[in-house]
């Protein structure tokens, strides 16, 4: 007998008409998203499912299908979760991944144990010239403390295989601790992962978050060490044997990163923020690269209720291939009954090492109307100007429907607007 107590779902269809970015033809891609979940099913179990379908209705061949589903249940302190993902982008190119996890968390134990295994998720099927095999498996286990209210510590093991070859055997120590009695209640966190196969520290980071209530200042600082491989001086020819194939296009060595972020509430409605990260890594030609990413901006919430947002931001990037200076302006309005207005302007001036310099401008205006509770329809207009297009105009639409049904309670709506509320996207 079905004993569902909580059913929630979200469906969205979005499309656009535009001139092809690469094909010089008119394209009309349409994306269909959906998710359906059942909570508090039999014995408190849960089922989640998700799908994404993409078609170009202008008649081209491109099509993507992705389906994912998982079920989670708990019996006698043992939580079991099983999931399957199916992704297909070309005929005959379907890929299916299965994975599962068991978690033992008896209330009387001070620790929780997890074992997991299966195939890692893939977000993109590989059909290109440089193939990375999708014959991958992961298996691992972790033990996490549950007895401390202000902190969690865990030790874990992960073995990752690709093409029947062990890529890494990671032993990890992870922890986070809130210092509740220290000014600013700092939260400290860190991870260290040793690759037992190559005796190589694969990843380590240490960070802290602080919120100084009187100064209304939030801060986050983090240092990271990253070395996904230790394969000598030469790039491994077979990309399937690279741990992080894109990183290894740039570096065969380790990378160090320092990152910091500040956010201060200047008043009840205005806050300023700044983020900066510095990376240093050795290139394949043994020279070092210093990378900088940073942005600084101001967010104004007129009325202070978050229903209206104005944001102005300056950002700057610098790497071995050039630098970018840009600015963004965002204005979102959800104040008026059932109406959603979103605008965005992004201007990026870039100068590349390949002697290409230009300014790219992207603008977007979206106007939506909540036709019924939970049902939102939006039309968007884009106007872009860049090195590829002197004038790039795009017209799009977005329709979404969100609902939640709880046994004994009427059908609920309203998440449609929640999804597009400015506060819904963390900074």
């Amino acid at each position, binding site marked *: 007998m079905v004993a569902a107590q909580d059913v929630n779902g979200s469906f969205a269809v979005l499309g656009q008409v535009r001139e092809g970015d690469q094909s010089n033809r008119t394209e009309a891609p349409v994306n269909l998203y959906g998710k359906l979940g059942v909570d508090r099913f039999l014995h408190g179990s849960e089922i*989640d499912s998700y799908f994404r379908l*993409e078609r170009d209705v202008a008649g081209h061949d491109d099509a993507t299908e992705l389906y*994912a589903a998982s079920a989670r249940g708990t019996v006698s302190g043992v939580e079991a979760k099983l999931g399957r993902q199916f992704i297909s982008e070309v005929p005959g190119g379907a890929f299916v991944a299965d994975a599962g996890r068991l978690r033992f968390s008896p209330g009387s134990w001070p620790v929780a144990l997890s074992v997991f295994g299966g195939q890692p998720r893939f977000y*993109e099927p590989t059909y290109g010239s440089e193939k990375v095999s999708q014959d991958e498996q992961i298996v691992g286990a972790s033990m996490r403390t549950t007895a401390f209210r202000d902190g969690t510590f865990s030790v874990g093991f992960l073995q990752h295989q690709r093409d029947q070859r062990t890529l890494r055997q990671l032993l990890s120590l992870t922890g986070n601790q809130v210092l509740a009695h220290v000014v600013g209640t700092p939260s400290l966190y860190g991870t260290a992962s040793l690759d037992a196969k190559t005796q190589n520290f694969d990843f380590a980071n240490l960070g802290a978050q602080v919120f100084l209530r009187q100064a209304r200042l939030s801060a986050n600082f983090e240092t990271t060490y990253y070395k996904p491989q230790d394969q000598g001086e030469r790039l491994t020819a077979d990309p399937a044997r690279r741990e992080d194939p894109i990183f290894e296009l740039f570096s065969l060595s380790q990378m160090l990163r320092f990152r910091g972020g500040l956010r201060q509430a200047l008043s009840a409605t205005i806050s300023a923020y700044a983020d900066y990260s510095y990376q240093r890594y050795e290139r394949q030609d043994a020279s070092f690269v210093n990378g900088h990413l940073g942005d600084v901006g101001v967010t104004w919430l007129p009325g202070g209720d978050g229903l209206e947002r104005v944001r102005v931001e300056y950002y700057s990037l610098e790497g071995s291939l050039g630098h970018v200076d840009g600015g963004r302006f965002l204005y979102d309005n*959800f*104040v008026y009954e059932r109406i959603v207005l979103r605008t965005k302007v992004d201007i990026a001036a870039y100068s590349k090492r390949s002697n290409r310099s230009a300014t790219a401008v992207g603008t977007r205006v979206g106007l939506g109307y909540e036709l019924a509770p939970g049902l939102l329809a939006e039309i968007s207009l884009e106007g872009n100007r860049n090195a590829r297009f002197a004038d790039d105009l795009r017209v799009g639409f977005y329709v979404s429907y969100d609902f939640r049904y709880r046994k004994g309670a009427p059908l609920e709506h309203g998440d449609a607007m929640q999804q597009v509320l400015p506060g819904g996207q963390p900074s």
Partner: protein
Amino acid sequence: MKRCAIALVLVFLALGVTACRQFLPDNQYLRQRTGSVSQSTREARRAFRHDKHDAVFAEQHLTCIDCHHFDLKIDAKEALGRALSAHAMHPSSVACHTCHLAGEGKITAAPERCLSCHENMRPLLPEDHQVAWLQVHPSMARSNPARCENCHQQTYCIDCHERRDTVQTRMHDRNFRFTHSIEASADPSRCGSCHRPDYCTNCHQQGRLKGAP
């Protein structure tokens, strides 16, 4: 010049719309989402069902005064007294969290997910989600995945991490098409979280993209 004019028009449009909001009615669908922490707690309290908990309470030998504090001396004859009494009698969030959140009093069968009781999670947005959370969240999710699952279902991750080639720009702006190589060279460790090298080579090696190096 034309770009400056567009930007100025948008700024003035924003200011104009902002000024007008004072003269328009409130949005009934959105009003409920601008609550406070105490409002979210009240909603959670209303969602509580005694009949669903009676068996567990008996099994755990929990009595009424474990949650309701009868020891407060308030004259309930007066209106103010009645209100105070009702307020004082209501169990605080500690009463619920003792059994539902990880700790010494945690009952295994009690769901840990905040959404089990709290309908409106917006006022409960954790402090650490406010600063550079997009950059921080991989580390935090790795160190304590159970904390994420308190409020988020996995579809929340999928929504961003699996959206590809869509007409909406959620992760990268439209201009990213022209500046991505610079960002990749500044921090090459970020791309691999979502993309595989085929994503690069499909354009850069097959000549599908005009002008790509």
